[in-house]
């Protein structure tokens, strides 16, 4: 009960949190190993926008294989910018990124596949669900005979096995998001990037999808980089949470969620869960204070 014992102590700072986590990891089954190979290395990546604002101060972050890493922070902290750098939709103004210890050109090879699930489902309204899910395979030139069973398997994996012939507008928001996840998984990625994928959904649907996602991550040995606004979601899903602060966007603190998988509703209702949420909430409050223009300008 290492986590509970810490509740009376003052707020732990990143290094200490990590050290404590590492100590308790020896006692439990927690993935991933701290020495797992890096999937993504962000090396002093900085982003300055055209208008001169610093979206990201130099950021260093390593996402290790098998991790479920969440980025959380006040708006404007650059978490989505960071994700877009990893997705190579954006280039850092300075610094660099490594994907599996190499350049972006190597991404897509066996064992180095990456998928992105965006904030919206971003389905093509003119295609049926199955065709939407098949899109990444079509673009890669996979033959229909080979792609059809994979699409069906991906759809069944998210509980949409019967919906392949529907159009996106015929599905609910939650189902559309599931279809987007199926599209993300159909390429059998090693790394899944998710930018607040369930932000627009109601609490109930969101919890359900969270549970499915964490299950999927566990079964498929995925590496996930997940952007969220929700403390509960971050604690429930993640093996590690990176708290970011704004003006300029930077990493403020880290929190390791030292809890065995697979996690279920029991964890959600446990006192440990509440404890993690409280600590994360406290860190977020601090991060918000550190992001306040008044305090940062006074400090600078």
């Amino acid at each position, binding site marked *: 009960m290492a986590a509970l014992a810490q509740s009376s102590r003052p707020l732990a700072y990143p290094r200490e949190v990590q050290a404590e986590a590492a100590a308790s990891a020896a006692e439990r089954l927690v993935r991933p190993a701290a020495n797992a190979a890096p999937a993504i290395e962000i090396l002093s990546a900085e982003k300055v926008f055209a208008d001169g604002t610093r979206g990201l101060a130099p950021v260093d972050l390593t996402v290790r294989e098998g991790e479920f890493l969440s980025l959380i922070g006040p708006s404007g902290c650059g978490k989505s910018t960071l994700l877009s750098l990893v*997705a*190579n*939709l954006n280039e850092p103004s300075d610094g660099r990124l490594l994907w599996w210890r190499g350049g972006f050109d190597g991404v*897509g090879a066996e064992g180095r596949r*990456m*998928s*992105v699930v*965006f*904030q*919206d489902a*971003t389905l*093509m*309204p*003119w295609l049926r669900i199955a065709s939407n899910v098949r*899109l*990444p395979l*079509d*673009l*890669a030139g996979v033959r229909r005979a080979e792609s059809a069973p994979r699409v069906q398997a991906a759809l069944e994996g998210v509980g949409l096995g019967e919906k392949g012939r529907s*159009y996106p*507008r015929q599905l609910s928001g939650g189902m559309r998001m599931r279809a987007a996840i199926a599209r993300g998984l159909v390429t059998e990625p090693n790394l899944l990037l998710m930018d607040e994928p369930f932000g627009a959904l109601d609490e109930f649907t969101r919890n359900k999808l969270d549970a499915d996602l964490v299950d999927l991550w566990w079964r498929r040995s995925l590496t996930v980089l997940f952007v969220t606004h929700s403390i509960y979601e971050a604690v429930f899903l993640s093996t590690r949470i990176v708290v970011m602060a704004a003006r300029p966007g930077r990493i403020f603190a880290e929190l390791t969620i030292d809890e065995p998988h697979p996690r279920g509703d029991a964890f959600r209702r446990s006192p440990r869960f509440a404890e993690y949420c409280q600590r994360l909430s406290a860190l977020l409050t601090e991060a918000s204070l550190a992001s306040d223009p008044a305090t940062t300008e006074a400090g600078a």
Partner: protein
Amino acid sequence: MKRPLIRDSRVQAALPPLVVGVAVLSLWEGACRGFAIPEYLFPAPSVIAASLVQNGPDLLRALWSTMRVTLIAFALSTVLGTLVAFLFVQSRFIERGFFPYAVMLQVTPVVAVAPLIIILVRDTQVALVICATIIAIFPMISNTTVGLRSVDPGLANLMRVYRASRMQTLLRLRIPSALGYFFAGLRISSGLALIGAVVAEFVAGTGGRSAGLAYEILQAGFQLDIPRMFAALSLITAAGILLFLAMSGLSRLALGSWGDPERV
């Protein structure tokens, strides 16, 4: 169990305009008879209908002539306009270079240019087609350009993440995204092609080069055959409505299954 006819939604939709139409026509007919308005001033609907039947063969021949010009001009604007739009989205330089001239084409009244074209081009039919195309091509260019550019940024990012080539992005994302705008352009352009054809015919007609329904209207005017004028006019309107309905139907046929918010 069959529902009563009056409750059928299609009947309900068609009923109000039908009632208004019949009411206006009866009022018109009644007023013409009641006040004994001479038919060379303002003919009653029945007189116009009679004239339509009486001059049927001539008017239909004229209608065919007008429609031929309209359809050729419409087809030309569709093909050329779409090609130009594709060129525009290929590079900003091309668009910046040519767009002002496309606007110039649009804002110059075709009535003002038509005499010049009719003098320059020996073949009247070709001259008419050129005039109508000048009017009809602009909505095709601008709508298709906007459509090709109106790509959902999320979907564009998706294509980039999966490393789609330029061609794949064009075929799988840009063209389908543009279809709604393209069909809206078709509806506008088809109407404008008809207007362009009629206007050009007027100009050609005043120059003594006969063609089409506008020429019929001009001739009827010279002869003070006002019912025949109205009859020709009603044919032009009918042709316009038919074109619009055809384009709406085509658009529904093509986009119907996607739930496109722009569909009519």
